[in-house]
């Protein structure tokens, strides 16, 4: 059952920002994990666990958008 509920963060603006800068982000951050908050990259780490530690320390009251950045090749090899 789907119900309408306001989420604690804006789910769309950071997604739109990510997609507007997608090619550059893949070029710059491939195989890293990034956190986006208020249309900015606020943390970068080599693993999701490491990124979670940074976010827990620096943004304990917020929920950034987390994205593990694939390489160009990984996009091209999707079937």
């Amino acid at each position, binding site marked *: 059952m*789907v119900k309408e509920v306001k989420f604690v963060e804006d789910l769309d603006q950071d*997604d739109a920002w990510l997609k507007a800068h997608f090619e550059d982000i893949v070029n710059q951050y491939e195989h890293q994990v990034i956190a986006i908050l208020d249309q900015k990259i606020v943390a970068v780490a080599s693993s999701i666990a490491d990124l*979670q530690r940074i976010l827990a320390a620096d943004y304990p009251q917020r929920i950034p*958008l*987390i994205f593990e950045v694939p390489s160009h090749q990984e996009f091209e090899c999707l079937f």
Partner: protein
Amino acid sequence: MPVLEYDYAVVAGRRSPLIPLGLGHQGKWQRVEAYVDSGAFYSVFKPGFAPPLGLEWQAGERVQVQVGDGRLIPVYLHELDVQVRQYRFSGRIGFSEHLGIRFNLIGRIPLFEQFVICFDDRRGVVSLEPHSEC
């Protein structure tokens, strides 16, 4: 209920249907991007998203899932809250460290149970329409 539309992510002209969503458990939330995969029965996310939700990811129901190269991988299913824009629902979400790709996959369970989904590759848009009975 209004239809949701999301632009594809584009790399080197290759379009991929990524959508943002919230994963929740007992009031704790994570915000992630997931690849909408109509060929995936289960949804599979990276285990790193489970601890902040208070989940021990390997404590979930274990199922075996066959992936593209024919291997069977263990996936651990948990009942989670899922938020897509203004819509929230509950469903089974899997975690696995063996998926072999960097994307989280959101598949037929639970997304396609709740929405009619259209992939418009010409426009580069994926749309989600809540089922009318929901």
